[in-house]
């Protein structure tokens, strides 16, 4: 296990810092234990070629997967969280932000990139789970709002890639109101007839599910992603018995009618390009 952990760390740093991966690193699938060269794993968009397990990846990787030539412009790259409530639990929120920024290299839990997908322009707001569990605070809400403004102004389709545990408790009601803010802002896209595509990845829960993640003109998800409003632990406590197999997986949510389809990450880019063209023509 420690060997695997080391390798994982190696991957994370290498993809964060630069595009090329050092030679000699191997990737071991946590699901089926299959071992493959890391560069092959990356070339497969971080999907295991044996069992199809989708590794959790971040905004940088999604932008590189989606945008032509890995080229994109980041919007509002310098936006950061303040601490409007001067929130302290076991640690000051302001220190938590600074420490997390240092540790992850991210400014907050969402980045917005503008680029082209197989020739089709697209604004993508992508969450980073590594930043306080991908929690939705004021920055996430404001970046989405400004991303939508950019889409409106330039008449470019909009996409959000969700990966979040939900609201950011340290911003309390400010965090709650980001659900209202993003949903209200999405009505403007709808009125302008600009498509909004929501991609739900592992995990998408809480206030994110109960706002923008479920509001796509097209809602899509990655295989086996955990998707729900209440977390599985809470549901289990509520009903007082074990959850059925496959509960709250993307496949379960698709079956119940809340997703349009599930997309293998290796086909994400081509599917997106196809969709964008179908909306356009």
């Amino acid at each position, binding site marked *: 296990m420690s060997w695997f952990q080391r390798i994982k760390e190696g991957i994370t740093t290498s993809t964060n810092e630069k595009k090329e991966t050092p030679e000699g690193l191997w990737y071991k699938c946590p699901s089926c234990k299959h071992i493959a060269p890391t560069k092959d794993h990356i070339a497969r968009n971080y999907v295991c070629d044996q069992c199809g397990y989708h590794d959790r990846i971040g905004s940088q990787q999604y932008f590189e997967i989606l945008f032509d030539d890995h080229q994109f412009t980041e919007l509002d790259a*310098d*936006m*950061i*969280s*303040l601490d*409007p*409530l001067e*929130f*302290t*639990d*076991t640690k000051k929120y302001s220190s938590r932000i600074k420490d997390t920024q240092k540790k992850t290299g991210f*400014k907050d839990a969402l980045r917005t990139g503008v680029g082209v997908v197989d020739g089709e322009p697209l604004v993508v707001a992508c969450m980073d789970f590594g930043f306080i569990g991908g929690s939705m*605070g*004021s*920055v996430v*809400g*404001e970046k989405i*709002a400004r991303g939508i403004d950019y889409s409106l102004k330039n008449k470019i389709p909009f996409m959000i890639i969700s990966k979040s545990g939900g*609201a950011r*408790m340290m*911003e*309390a*009601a*400010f*965090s*709650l*109101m*980001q*659900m*209202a*803010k993003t*949903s*209200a*802002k*999405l*009505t*403007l896209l*709808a*009125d302008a007839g600009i498509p909004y595509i929501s991609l739900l990845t592992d995990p998408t829960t809480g*206030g994110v*599910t*109960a*706002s*923008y*993640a*479920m*509001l796509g003109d097209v809602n899509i998800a990655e295989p086996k992603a955990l998707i*729900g*409003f*209440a977390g599985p632990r*809470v*549901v289990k406590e*509520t*009903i007082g018995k074990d*959850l059925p197999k496959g*509960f*709250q997986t993307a496949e379960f949510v698709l079956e*119940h*009618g*809340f997703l349009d389809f599930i997309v293998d990450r290796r086909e994400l880019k081509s599917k997106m390009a196809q969709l964008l063209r179908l909306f356009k023509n």
Partner: protein
Amino acid sequence: MNFLDFEKPVAELIDQIEKQKLIGEKSKVDVSVAVRQLEIRLEETRRNLYSKLTPWQKVQLSRHPDRPYSLAYIQAITDSNFVELFGDRTVKDDKAIVGGLGSIDGQTVMFIGQQKGTTTKQRQYRNFGMANPEGYRKALRLMKLAEKFGKPVVTLIDTPGAYPGLEAEERGQGEAIARNLFEMARLKVPVVCIIIGEGASGGALGIGIGDRVFMLENTWYSVISPESCSSILWRSWDFKEKAAEVLKLTADDMLKNRLIDGIIKEPVGGAHSRPEEMFKRVKAEITKSLQELGALSTQTLVNQRIEKFCSMGVVGQSN
């Protein structure tokens, strides 16, 4: 009467007054002076106690078992000129959310609210005010009905949260709430929302997107309950008082942070101490708001509502 732990001095005085009166009846001794003195002390004690409530005490008051619930407000405000409407037209009728058409001094309004029960049986019947997806879809159906006939919408919020059950997940609790946020944001009629008790998270927000959002004085509104916040951030249930403080969930804090539009004062002792007075104040605020909002064009109304929610949040710029 039910009393909370911090209301003990009040309970004791009421008890003493009752005893004095009983003595007076039995012994035919004039106790009126003693009773009056006790009553004065009761008023003072109440005023004192309720003027400096801690956030946690307000949370407790918001859940007071004697507190009036949505239907009581609706019946009083409409003088019982109210027709309750049921069902989401898809799955079922959710008892945790009530709604219907009612009249406020001749103006027809669509009322929607979470409903809690007053007895153990009623509480279960109402699922403790925790709606399933069909509750939110029932609410949306009623809002759309109101929109169709140009009637304003008034929502009364009082919930410990959306129900976190298995079937709720199957039927898309997240989607149901999300849809309401989206549709309420662009509803073409005035929307007034009032938190009359508990305003817990997405479950409250799901009927909470309004042109005017008010909180009663002793209510709370936040992203999570103090108990759950305590268990998640401190990994213990013992920090609920602390959590209630740091969440800044009181009406005063919410107004200060401009996340609500106003506070409706409660009678001394809380809404349940003089419900009729509380109903009167809520009705007055609704009437005033609907008058103001009725003067706006549909486009202005919707634009202002969207603008208001889009301005919520605090962000900075790194160097």
